[in-house]
């Protein structure tokens, strides 16, 4: 006996539950993926911020300083050269020891003098050179403490560990605790971090040098890659004949976008430094290398933006008698600009975060001076992070995380700028 044939609606109903289930499953999978991504993002931010945030604060100690004329200016003629070459280290040692008069023995006396940052020497020298009348004066000044004590104050030294496993001995911790008890220790905003270049002493190291290096590099990159990229995109998309040569160029540009960035560094080393003789470690060369790296991105984004301009606008312009260039400049480019700008800023953001190509052209250098032009030796933010993470001091790890926060802030700002520009230039048709 044959079952009666099912109606269409019955057949549809039979599969309906399965179809709905599949849809729900797919939706939940998507949600889970988004959630997982968010969790990792939050974890990353929490980790970076919790590690890096303390770097914005620096422990200072109040030192009683006596600018001893015997040390600073034995002749008493206030000669700048004498003032500049005086032994300020002796002043610092004397100052710290005056806080701990009971400390005996060569080693202990040496150790206690290391409580203040090594930069104190230069700080005192700067003070005297700026105001020679300080000689002979007794005053109290705030100076950064050495990074080990800074870590102790920030709670990064585990006092319960056996003494041999700590960077600071019980005795040193005792000195520091006594300074706290005397009210000579204070945590202050770490302005040095935003004003100084790199340093071997974490408490003196800052990101300003690296930030300026990155800035000069991006200026070079932007001023070369944007006009070149837009011009290339316009030529390839609007003017170039469609033949073997242009399709070969097209394939190569697409491939270049996928070339590992270190290869561009090799190219930069071979061409810009060895062949053209441009200076090593210079933001100029870094910018040129990053230009090569971002050009394909900008060209591809630019061409996509040009293609997405509706043909009706082109026809309208041509139909009224605009020349091809007028059509492109007056109508096509303004409409393509948001897409081009987005591509450019994404390319620039990538360039800002790039380390590998800079390795090859000598920008992984210990640069203390703040670069003043595109030809000065410089390093870049991501390279600075890399260098600091490589250092053994705990305080440098902290500063590396803080530098990452600064870098991320720049990247977020650039992406926000991309969105704002896109909104502003976007026109409906």
């Amino acid at each position: 006996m044959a079952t009666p044939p099912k109606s269409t609606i019955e057949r549809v109903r039979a599969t309906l539950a399965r179809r709905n289930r599949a849809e729900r499953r797919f939706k939940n999978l998507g949600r889970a993926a988004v959630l997982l991504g968010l969790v990792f993002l939050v974890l990353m931010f929490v980790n970076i911020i919790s590690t890096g945030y303390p770097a914005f604060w620096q422990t200072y100690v109040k030192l009683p300083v006596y600018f001893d004329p015997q040390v600073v200016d034995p002749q008493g003629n206030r000669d700048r050269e004498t003032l500049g070459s005086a032994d300020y280290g002796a002043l610092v040692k004397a100052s710290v020891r005056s806080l701990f008069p009971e400390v005996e023995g060569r080693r202990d006396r040496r150790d206690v003098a290391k409580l203040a940052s090594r930069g104190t020497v230069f700080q005192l020298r700067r003070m005297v050179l700026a105001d020679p009348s300080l000689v002979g004066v007794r005053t109290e000044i705030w100076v950064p403490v050495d990074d080990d004590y800074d870590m102790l104050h920030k709670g990064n030294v585990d006092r319960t560990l056996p003494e041999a496993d700590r960077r600071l001995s019980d005795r040193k911790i005792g000195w520091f605790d006594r300074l706290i008890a005397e009210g000579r220790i204070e945590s202050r905003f770490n302005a040095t971090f935003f004003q100084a270049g790199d340093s071997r002493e974490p408490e003196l190291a800052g990101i300003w040098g690296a930030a300026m290096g990155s800035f000069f590099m991006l200026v070079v990159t932007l001023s070369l890659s944007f006009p070149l990229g837009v011009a290339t995109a316009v030529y390839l998309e609007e003017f170039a004949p469609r033949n073997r040569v242009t399709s070969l160029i097209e394939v190569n540009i697409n491939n270049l976008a996928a070339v590992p960035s270190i290869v561009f560094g090799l190219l930069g080393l071979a061409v810009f430094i060895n062949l053209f003789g441009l200076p090593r470690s210079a933001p100029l060369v870094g910018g040129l290398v990053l230009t090569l790296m971002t050009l394909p991105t900008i060209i591809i984004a630019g061409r996509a933006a040009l293609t997405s301009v509706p043909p009706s606008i082109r026809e309208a312009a041509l139909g009224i008698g605009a020349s091809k260039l007028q059509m492109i400049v007056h109508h096509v480019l303004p409409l393509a600009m948001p897409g081009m700008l987005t591509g450019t800023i994404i390319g620039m953001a990538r360039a800002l975060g790039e380390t590998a190509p800079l390795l090859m052209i000598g920008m992984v250098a210990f640069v203390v001076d703040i670069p003043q032009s595109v030809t000065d030796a410089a390093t870049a933010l991501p390279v600075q992070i890399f260098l600091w993470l490589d250092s053994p001091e705990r305080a440098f790890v902290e500063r590396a995380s803080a530098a990452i926060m600064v870098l991320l802030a720049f990247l977020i700002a650039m992406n926000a700028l991309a969105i704002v520009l896109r909104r502003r230039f976007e026109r409906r048709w």
Partner: protein
Amino acid sequence: MAHQPGVAVMEAGALEFRAAEVEDTDERRESRETVGTPFADDPRMTCRDVNVYYGDNHAIKNVSLDIGREQVLAMIGPSGCGKSTFLRALNRMNDTIDGCRMTGEIRLDGQDIYAKDMDVVPLRALVGMVFQKPNPFPKSIFDNIAYGVRIHGLAESKSEIEGIVEHSLKRAGLWEEVNDRLDQPGTGLSGGQQQRLCIARTIAVSPEVILMDEPCSALDPIATAKVEDLINELGQDYTIAIVTHSMQQAARVSQRTAYFHLGDLLEVGPTDQIFTNPIHPLTEDYITGRFG
């Protein structure tokens, strides 16, 4: 195998057709010769043996046709018959299409527009074009119309541009509707207004010929009626070639009609004659709605 058409009444146009006097034979049906009156006494544009190819596709086959001075020529025919291609050949818009070739000769006031020394920029100022889909620039209404005037340097001063904009909008019958918001984007207008804006933009550069490629196919009937009135009025002063899918529209706006069929120009004649007494059997099939 005589074909006996009776009296056919078109649905909307309500035009009556007389039975074709000529005999419908296989031989005549196969013929791709242009019949009727393709040539005019005082033509503005003359086309001789025009062939257009898209790659290997022979889109326009040996078309010879005159476009008369200050009259409206309608081009009708089934989809893919090449009427739009032919229209775009008249101001060299086909130049922008890759792989498009053209042979033959098209003259505007006796001047060969495909001559080597002919620049497309002045040509397109002389032969304006209105497209199927309204395509105002994403700029203000004023700038839409002033654009052509500015790039061709047709006005000396700002007030002169303003005068041209006002005049063009008035001719396009749009002035009353938009004169209080000339600085608003042209893309904010309704479809019909946009198309009239595009017509105003075209006449602002005072062309001699206006080409229209199905200007009403994206418009509702009321907007269509307004654009048709406008075409009728412009036909007094301008030479207009219009491609249309709507035979009623051809009947309403044109003085002459050309029927294209798969790349061939089959028949040209006065509009009332084409619709009442077509010579070619395929023309008759098309206008009586047997295909197309």
